[in-house]
């Protein structure tokens, strides 16, 4: 029996209709299955909005310190890092501990020192640990300027709520425990180009371009970044610079474990005994302080921060 013209038309119509239906169904299912769009992070005011006023000049001074503390807050800095090395985009970028997120989070109780900290005291911690330097006294012009800058960036941000993009990206634990050897491979392939195989970073014409990620000119053992979870979150969201989000979670954890298993300046809270210091301040799976890595006990030496 041959197929007549009408039947052909019917077949074609049914085929076409089913195709369209399949596409439509796929679209609808896709819409419903699509991950909810990440909440939009807070947008800090443009730098051009810094007012031309006595307050604005304080903000501008804070910005200058933020971009180059070694030059503009020299007395309190003991290494080659800048605020903007970890707080990317001059403290504006979501998931790299933006200043607008930090400013509205204080006063806050911190387990790190067991009391309620003001924002200024939190800034002191940055100098003492991340900058391996000396905490500016409360009321010091350096703290006033930085606090003014952070306040400016937080203009319009709500107080007392969790903001998307605040702090570092929180990564859930990886499928495999973070591993030094795998981390070394990730480092060699993705990080050494800028930070060097020795972790010392690179300088050009006297200015540090790529910050040291371990060694005597990097953050000390008391810094937040010395905890593997913080480093993993920062790396996942932002590294390699311009290619944030391209490493897998496992790679981010592994390379964070590798970096935070390298020698770095002593914790300023060092009690004189590595084991005791670990028990008091580093008793978590996220810290390699007082543990051995690559045949070396980590956390040796006396504090070197600026006294």
């Amino acid at each position: 029996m041959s197929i007549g013209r009408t039947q052909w038309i019917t077949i074609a119509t049914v085929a076409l209709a089913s195709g369209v239906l399949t596409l439509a169904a796929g679209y609808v299912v896709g819409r419903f299955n699509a991950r909810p769009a990440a909440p939009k992070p807070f947008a800090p005011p443009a730098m051009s909005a810094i007012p031309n006023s006595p307050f604005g000049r304080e903000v501008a001074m804070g910005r200058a310190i933020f971009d180059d503390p070694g030059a503009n807050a020299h007395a309190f800095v003991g290494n080659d890092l800048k605020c903007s090395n970890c707080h990317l985009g001059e403290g504006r970028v979501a998931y790299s501990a933006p200043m607008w997120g930090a400013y509205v989070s204080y006063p806050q109780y911190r387990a790190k020192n067991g009391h309620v900290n003001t924002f200024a005291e939190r800034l002191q911690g940055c100098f003492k640990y991340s900058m391996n330097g000396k905490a500016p006294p409360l009321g010091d012009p350096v703290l006033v300027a930085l606090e003014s800058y952070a306040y400016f960036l937080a203009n319009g941000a709500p107080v007392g709520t969790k903001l998307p993009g605040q702090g570092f990206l929180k990564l859930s634990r990886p499928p495999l425990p973070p591993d030094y050897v795998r981390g070394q491979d990730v480092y060699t392939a993705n990080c050494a180009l800028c930070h060097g195989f020795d972790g010392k970073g690179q300088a050009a014409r006297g200015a540090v371009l790529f910050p040291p990620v371990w060694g005597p000119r990097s953050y000390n053992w008391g810094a937040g970044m010395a905890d593997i979870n913080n480093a993993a979150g920062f790396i996942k969201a932002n590294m390699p610079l311009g290619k944030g989000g391209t490493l897998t979670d496992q790679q981010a954890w592994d390379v964070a474990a590798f970096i935070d298993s390298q020698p770095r300046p002593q914790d300023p809270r060092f009690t004189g005994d590595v084991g005791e210091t670990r028990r008091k301040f580093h008793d978590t799976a996220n810290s390699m302080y007082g543990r051995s890595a690559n045949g070396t006990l980590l956390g040796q030496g006396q504090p070197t921060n600026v006294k």
Partner: protein
Amino acid sequence: MGRQGTSRAAGSAAVVAAAAMAFSGASAAWSLAAAPERTGSSIAHFGMIQHGTRACASCHGANGEGDLAQNAPRLAGEDEAYLERQLRAFRDGRRYSLVMGSVARTLDDEDRAAVARYYASLPAIGEARARTPGLAALGGAIAHQGDWARKVPPCASCHGADGLGVGASFPPLAGQRADYLERQLIRFRWNDRRDDPLGLMRGVAARLSAPEIRAVAAYYATLPPRAPSPPTFKATPPTIRPAPAARPRGAG
């Protein structure tokens, strides 16, 4: 001594030429007589005829200043390690260019090093003015602040606040020709140039619009280029000539 050497070479060339007259006497004579000591400068200005190497200067200009019509960038005052890395990339085809590939394949390790060293030692002359000031201002904002919402970090975070680069992987941009910079960014953007480490430039360029690329290129063309590095080649001792008898001394 140079004269003597030349005449001796010419003499032996004549002997060889006579022996090989039936085949390629003329070219044998030429290659023997004119195979001088290779230096970066000689390769740059005369090429190496015995290897089919064209003179760099034929496209990049007598002072390595580059040439718009030839799509040839400025080489003078560029980073030595970066130039060497580019010559290797051209040779291996990691960076594609018909012209530069054919030239780079005729160079050996020493030639590459010598040419790179020579151009790095030359004084760089930048464009040093903004042809379109508005464009350069937009470019400056991208260069120093980036656009983090689009995952565009500031160019300065890798190429330095002065745009002079660091090491073999992050070349100087300051004072480079705007047309060249724009073309390279466009090629990165379209995945047509692929020798960038980790694909960093392809990623960033793909997130910039064509007008933004033009603006960034215009901005960097206006920055002052690097001061020349001290020459590392051995200086020729000055020839001592008898002073002219009655030459008036200049004042001071």
